[in-house]
């Protein structure tokens, strides 16, 4: 096994990879920005070295500098985590050129699957259904008009060079096509440096279901079951769960085989995720391949008992897959909630500040992957997700009850989080019944009216405000609060009430 690896990431995924490596006796080297000098991940790695100022572009995205540190410290491999450099072919290529193993697929596989159009070709070759659409990129507006009338509205304008909702526009009628075409191209240029866009059929009430795959470098590939990721806001996943309520055994097997065929066709190795989209009638279509370990990988780990990060190390080290498809029998039900530093009452505005106190009671069947602890600062430099709560239970109902109990007791001061929003989402009837799709939050959930408080809770809040007022806690800003002293007279007066 590798003796020493470098972790080119920060926050919870860096802690995840560092702890997994240490558990296999692998020495760990972290790299940090000014802001992360003594963040949790930078402290628990065996060694840690400075990259640059806090902004990602001057630190976590400096591929050359990371390679240089890896060579200087004798690292045999680099784990890119997710985001940052994890899906940049140039960085994977840089590793290959410098004889440092990139823990992930080959740079060519990343590059190839990174382009939506190429990925689509692979799917067609692997005879996996794809969303009705066009081939290659749009040449100009007329081309767009021609294709969209051919496929029929509503259509979806998508950036070839990237996902996550950037450079994407739904067009319901011809009249909207021109403005959406322009916006999609400019946003795609801004986000990925490549303005090529293409057109696909837009599916109503779509569900987003992805399959985790593991492929070694000897041609073996397995799938580890699906993750239901339809609970999204602005294309960002908020809650993921497995199994999906709408897949039956037959559909699961079929989609799993499709995922494996795509991996083989693309000569893919290491961990990856094949994303599908399902329409109302459970027709599934290939969407894209995420050529990295994903945020929601724990959902699959707790059901299969496999440690995907450790499997990644073994595969990158050249070992054969230690499991066959038959060995993989996912059990029970798991749900993951992403805890984000944002104000769900104020349009999900990112929340920054110093974490004062965190109360979280985990216990049986609850796992937390976190990168922060009380006392840490949360900044605007990086992604607002601070930790993930993953629960496992025998049934979906039990998993929902378990996660609700944890979120109910979860309390954090110093920053705002979406834990209350998650609690409401988990317990709304659409989630409980399982019939929700990727548009549910924005179309329905956001304009729900908040439940009214029962009288006892109202009294508790009122009395708390009295206690805080008396504790002069709010002294921090300006004018002194007028504090009435309990004169003997006053005490006598109230005793008369008894």
């Amino acid at each position, binding site marked *: 096994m590798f003796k020493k690896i470098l972790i080119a990431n920060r926050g919870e995924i860096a802690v995840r990879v560092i702890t997994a490596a240490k558990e296999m006796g692998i020495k760990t080297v972290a790299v940090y920005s000014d802001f992360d000098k003594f963040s949790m991940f930078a402290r628990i790695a065996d060694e840690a070295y400075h990259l640059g100022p806090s902004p990602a572009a001057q630190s976590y995205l400096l591929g050359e500098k990371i390679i240089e540190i890896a060579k200087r410290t004798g690292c045999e491999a680099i784990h890119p985590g997710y985001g940052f450099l994890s899906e940049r072919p140039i960085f994977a290529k840089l590793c290959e050129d410098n004889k440092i193993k990139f823990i992930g697929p080959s740079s060519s596989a990343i590059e190839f699957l990174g382009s939506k159009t190429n990925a689509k070709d692979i799917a067609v070759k692997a005879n996996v259904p794809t969303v009705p659409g066009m081939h290659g990129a749009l040449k100009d507006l007329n081309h767009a008009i021609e294709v969209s009338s051919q496929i029929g509205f509503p259509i979806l304008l998508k950036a070839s060079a990237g996902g996550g909702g950037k450079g994407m526009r739904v067009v319901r009628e011809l009249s909207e096509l021109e403005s959406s075409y322009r916006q999609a191209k400019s946003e795609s240029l801004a986000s990925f440096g490549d303005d090529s866009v293409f057109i696909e059929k837009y599916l109503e009430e779509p569900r987003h279901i992805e399959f985790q795959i593991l492929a070694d470098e000897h041609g073996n590939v397995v799938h580890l079951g699906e993750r239901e990721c339809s609970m999204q806001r602005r294309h960002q996943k908020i809650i993921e769960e497995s199994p999906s309520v709408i897949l039956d055994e037959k559909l699961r097997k079929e989609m799993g085989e499709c995922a494996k065929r795509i991996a083989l066709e693309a000569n893919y190795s290491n961990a990856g995720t094949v994303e599908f989209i399902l329409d109302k009638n459970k027709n599934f279509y290939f969407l894209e391949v995420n050529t990295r370990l994903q945020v929601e990988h724990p959902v699959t780990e707790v059901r299969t008992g496999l440690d995907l990060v450790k499997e990644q190390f073994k595969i990158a080290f050249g070992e054969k897959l230690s499991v066959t498809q038959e060995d993989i029998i996912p059990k029970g039900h798991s749900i993951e909630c992403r805890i984000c530093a944002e104000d769900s*009452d*104020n*349009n999900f*505005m*990112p*929340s*920054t*500040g110093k974490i*004062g*106190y965190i*109360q979280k009671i985990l216990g049986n069947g609850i796992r937390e992957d976190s990168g922060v602890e009380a006392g840490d600062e949360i900044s*605007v*430099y*990086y992604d*607002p997700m601070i930790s993930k709560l993953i629960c496992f239970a025998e049934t979906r109902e039990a998993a929902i009850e378990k996660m609700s109990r944890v*979120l109910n007791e*979860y*309390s954090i*001061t*110093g920053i705002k*989080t979406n*834990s*209350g929003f998650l*609690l409401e989402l988990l317990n709304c009837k659409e989630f409980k019944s399982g019939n929700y799709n990727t548009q549910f939050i924005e179309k329905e959930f956001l304009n729900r009216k908040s439940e009214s*408080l029962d009288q*006892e*809770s*109202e*009294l*508790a*809040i*009122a*009395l*708390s*405000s*009295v*206690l*805080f*007022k*008396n*504790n*002069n*806690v*709010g*002294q*921090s*800003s300006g*004018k*002194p*609060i*007028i*504090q*009435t*002293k*309990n004169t003997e007279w*006053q*005490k006598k007066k*109230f005793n008369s*009430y*008894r």
Partner: protein
Amino acid sequence: MIGLGKYIASINGKEIELLVISEDTILFNGKEIKFEYSFLKKDVISLRIEGKNYQVSLSDEDSQPEENSYSLDFYSKKYETICRNETDLLIDKFSSGKKDNLQKNNIKSPMPGIILKLNVKVNDAVKKGDILLVLEAMKMENELKSPRDGIIKKISISEKTSVEKNQLLIELE
């Protein structure tokens, strides 16, 4: 030590009156109610009312104690409260008839970022929820909406200026 006497606490506008008659007893709706509490942290209270457990935390950032306003977090949901004791009530009676509801005049930047678009000028009339400006932070566009109807009194930023967290941006009459 808690100041004995009458308190009026309004939660999201709904008024509740209670009378603190001793260190561990209040009078509410004519009933004597026992309570115990402990400050787990200066901004986190564990409260027990007649055996029932509650946990409430204070968001320092959004609270303005000098205006008796406390922003409380109750099981991950936010409640704007105003808590006035007898002295505050007296002051309110004789002061310049300051309107009762919470006066949100200052719009401060919730975090560091850059002003992308400014939609208003001084003396513009705005409605609650109007988008006053768009703040860009972390590759995301965040719209700052007006907390209430009012007139723009003062604007201390312009497009393209970068701002710090809590920096004052716009003042309403």
